[in-house]
């Protein structure tokens, strides 16, 4: 059995409830710990309450788009890795989300195992980012104390 600490913690965000619940179930079968949010504000609330490694985020959502969610999270959650899913990928959107620091943007329908592979790679980047942050904090403490 996989220990909770080493399970990928995934937040799936999409306004199509049937789609997102089905994808969540498929990811759970593959051993991931998955939560679901149906719109941008709920996704922001979720990540404020709980740690996730990766977020898979729909681009076109009512009220707050996936791009807007990404923009807001870049400040508050720099190490959270975000993969965008879109029904109609355009070059300007792809360029914008990459500039905003998204890990990747994939077109729907995404093959579940290919998506899983990207989620795992994103998680590795998240671990590296968290480690780097910790190292910087340690270095900072050491510097300040003159050790």
């Amino acid at each position, binding site marked *: 059995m996989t220990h909770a600490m080493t399970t990928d913690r995934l937040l799936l965000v999409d306004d*199509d409830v*049937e*789609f997102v619940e*089905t*994808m969540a*179930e*498929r990811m*759970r*079968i*593959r*051993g991931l710990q998955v939560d679901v949010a149906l719109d941008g504000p709920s996704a922001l609330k979720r990540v404020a309450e709980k740690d996730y490694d990766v977020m898979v985020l729909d681009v*076109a*959502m*009512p*009220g*707050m*788009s996936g791009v807007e969610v990404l923009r807001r999270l870049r400040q508050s959650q720099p190490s959270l890795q975000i993969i965008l899913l879109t*029904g*109609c990928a355009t070059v300007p959107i792809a360029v914008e989300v990459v500039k905003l620091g998204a890990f990747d943007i994939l077109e*729907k*329908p995404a093959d*579940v195992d290919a998506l899983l592979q990207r989620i795992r790679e994103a998680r590795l980047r998240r671990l590296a980012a968290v480690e780097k942050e910790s190292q910087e904090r340690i270095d900072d403490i050491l510097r300040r104390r003159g050790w």
Partner: protein
Amino acid sequence: MTGLRVLFVDDEQELVATILERLRLRGVDATGVTEAKEAVELIRRERFDIVVLDVKMPGLGGLELLRIIKKEKPSLPVIFLTGYGSEKEAEEGCRAGARDYLMKPIDLDRLLELMRTATSDAPAESENGAPEDPGALAFFARIVADFDHDVTNVLNTINELVGLQKDMIGQHPGASPAAGERLGVLVDRVANQVRRGVEIVRRMSRFAHSVEGAEASLDLGEAVDGLVALAARRVRLAGARVEAAHPAEAVTVRASPFVLYEALYRGVEACLEAAPKLTTITVGYERQRDGILLFVRSEGESGPRPPLRPREDRLRLLADRLHGSIVALPGEGHANRIELLLPAGEPPR
């Protein structure tokens, strides 16, 4: 400007002759008349790219002529000529659908510039006289894009459900072997998505066939319900919802279904622009003493009045094509309302 076909209408014979000569020297295919009635006959018989007409003319005046042109050839652009003291009529003409106006004495370069601008954004007319209207095409493209998105959503969901079935059947080691009942539920969920897809396609088919639509007797309730379904995604993405409101009694109007759809859809868009923090948009109609009031109303926090001019022009053109008139627009003391008054009986032919 070469080859541009202009009809010049002014009761001053000498002015008409001089302007025609000057326009022809610049490669413009110019025709001139001194009476509005003559102009009406020519417009019916021949094809022009633009009409330049004097506001003040004896008999049938410029404003009346403009109304006839807008009814017969709604996409034909019109520029008004006005003298000192008749600016108000010219401004009224612009509200009634004229592209612009020019003060006399005529500055020819300025007139050519106005003609160039008016014809470059005017909808073209095809050989058989049917409008090849870029505004209508843009509207059609928008609805098709939403349709594409809705259908893709259904297909993606079916794709995931079928994938989950495969997972459950045991292709994946994490799946439970006692999954027979669960598989039945998944098949039902696929069936639901297929039904959802059929409804989307049926809706789109009705809309797509409305494009062919010459004027017909339309059940207004059905048209409003159809539009609400078509606009639902656009409104939902803006964080609001759209609903239909109409009396139980059936009301029939004679109109082109496509034009009616576009008028209502543009009304919804104008409401979204006028008030960015909307909660609900209501589309409906009610009988009034002088006709049928077709409305798009919104609730929610209203913002500053947006630059509505192009949309306003479009709405006026569509109202004209529906033989009706606009009675309320955002910013005219009606923060979140667009209302069109349609004739209750058979429209004038």
